[in-house]
């Protein structure tokens, strides 16, 4: 009997069952929220190494003689400085400056790009990309179904992966890829990226090779205490590292400027969808900015809780939880710029009570330099 009937399965679904994952319906995907426990998994990635199934992420390719000029129109960041095998984090924007999605763009060759997009936005993104492709000599292809993806994250990620490949990982810089490598005899693309705040890799493979790749990585990481990691720790890890999550820190109304991601936006690029909206927001002055918060009173601020001052609602919490690494209750949220200075005291409305919190520096966690 199919325990998770009606849900989409990744190529690693058998691994979720084999390794005792607590499988849930995550936006229509059968994925594990946890394996050994969120706190344990979180700490394992910070101190050792963890393996994540991230195959639900969407992938698309953009190819054709005008691929670069098309993408320059589509994303908010100037891609002309990109070198082959480099990865850029950027955004697809609505004309208003609100975010369609945040994504990773890899340049494989001139006019040949590889996009990784959010699972929950994949269909919307591909439709948006195709809708605007008319007039460009470019082919937009959704290759999500043909791609398995794992993330190998933590201080021992390189030591683990190097056991299985002749590719020189020491020479692979952060936000760069090796487009065609062999890992345990399996053809993959290796990207030195992640969503945890740790060093690590994201590895793309053919779906049919997924389980063999997973088992090879688990075996190679055994000496370093590797564990499978679920969605719960994926969220707590990215949250501590101050990385935005679409639907929480980013959405159709919020631009990268409010989310303090201006360093990824090239307003000096002459034209892209959303540029006028961003300029207007900047000229008018931002209505809200993202801040880090730490609870002063006992309580945990959660997504959607109101932020208050003097009894008035002045903003909202986008993400909040107990930080396993810091041992404190922290959050991210939007407040007016006038209340965004470090140390500002505000309150969080939690179950009818106004509990004190203060604005603190983000990210909450930065990995120790080697």
């Amino acid at each position: 009997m199919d325990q998770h009937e009606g849900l989409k399965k990744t190529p690693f679904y058998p691994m979720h069952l084999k390794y005792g994952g607590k499988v849930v319906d995550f936006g229509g995907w059968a994925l594990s929220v946890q394996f050994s426990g969120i706190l344990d998994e979180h700490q394992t990635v910070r101190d050792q190494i963890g393996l994540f199934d991230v195959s639900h992420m969407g992938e698309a390719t953009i190819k054709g003689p005008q691929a670069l000029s098309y993408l320059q129109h589509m994303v908010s960041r100037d891609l002309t400085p990109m070198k082959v095998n480099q990865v850029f984090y950027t955004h697809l924007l609505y004309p208003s400056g609100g975010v369609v999605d945040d994504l990773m763009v890899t340049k494989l060759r001139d006019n040949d790009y590889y996009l990784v997009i959010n699972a929950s936005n994949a269909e919307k993104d591909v439709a948006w990309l195709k809708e605007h492709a008319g007039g460009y000599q470019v082919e937009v292809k959704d290759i999500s179904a043909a791609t398995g993806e794992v993330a190998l994250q933590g201080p021992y990620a390189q030591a683990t992966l190097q056991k299985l490949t002749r590719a020189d990982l020491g020479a692979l810089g952060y936000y760069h890829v090796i487009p065609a490598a062999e890992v345990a005899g399996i053809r993959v693309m290796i990207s030195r990226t992640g969503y945890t705040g740790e060093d690590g890799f994201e590895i793309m493979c053919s779906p049919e090779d997924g389980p063999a790749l997973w088992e090879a990585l688990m075996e190679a990481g055994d000496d370093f205490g590797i564990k499978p990691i679920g969605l719960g720790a994926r969220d707590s890890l990215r949250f501590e590292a101050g990385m935005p999550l679409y639907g929480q820190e980013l959405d159709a109304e919020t631009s990268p400027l409010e989310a303090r991601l201006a360093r990824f936006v090239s307003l000096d690029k002459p034209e892209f969808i959303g540029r006028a909206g961003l300029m207007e927001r900047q000229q008018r002055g931002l209505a809200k900015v993202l801040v880090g918060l730490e609870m002063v009173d006992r309580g945990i601020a959660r997504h959607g809780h109101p932020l208050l001052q003097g009894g008035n609602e002045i903003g909202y919490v986008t993400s909040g939880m107990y930080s396993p690494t810091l041992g404190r209750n922290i959050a991210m949220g939007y407040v007016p710029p006038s209340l965004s200075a470090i140390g500002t005291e505000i309150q969080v409305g939690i179950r009818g009570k106004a509990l004190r919190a203060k604005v603190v520096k983000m990210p909450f966690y930065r990995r120790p330099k080697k």
Partner: protein
Amino acid sequence: MAYPADYKYTKSHEYIKVEGNMGIVGLTNYAQDQLGDIVFVELPEVGGEVKQGEPFGVVESVKAVSDCYSPVGGKVVAVNDKLNDEPGTINADPHGAGWIMKVEIADKGEFANLMDVAAYQKHAEEEAKAGHH
């Protein structure tokens, strides 16, 4: 983990251990397992009144916020303050050191709405099978 035979249980996965007029209330092993690592507990106030089937406190795991429903009505006579600093005690020992509150039971007639261990075990197994996670 075995469920104590002498406790009574709710459908919402709380237990009560009855000692004379007093009841010790906590979350069952099934509840803590479903929640995962508990990182915060909001305890009721000592001296406050609780009602059967109504929320008396909140437990939060890394991901989820969950109300706790009182198995009986009565007056809260003690709370497990240790949970403020060590909420994970509920995970480690739900039926013992992880207790949440002690209640002076107002009406033992309310026990009719609770389950014995056999009925509760069946209930928890059915929920697990139905995929309530």
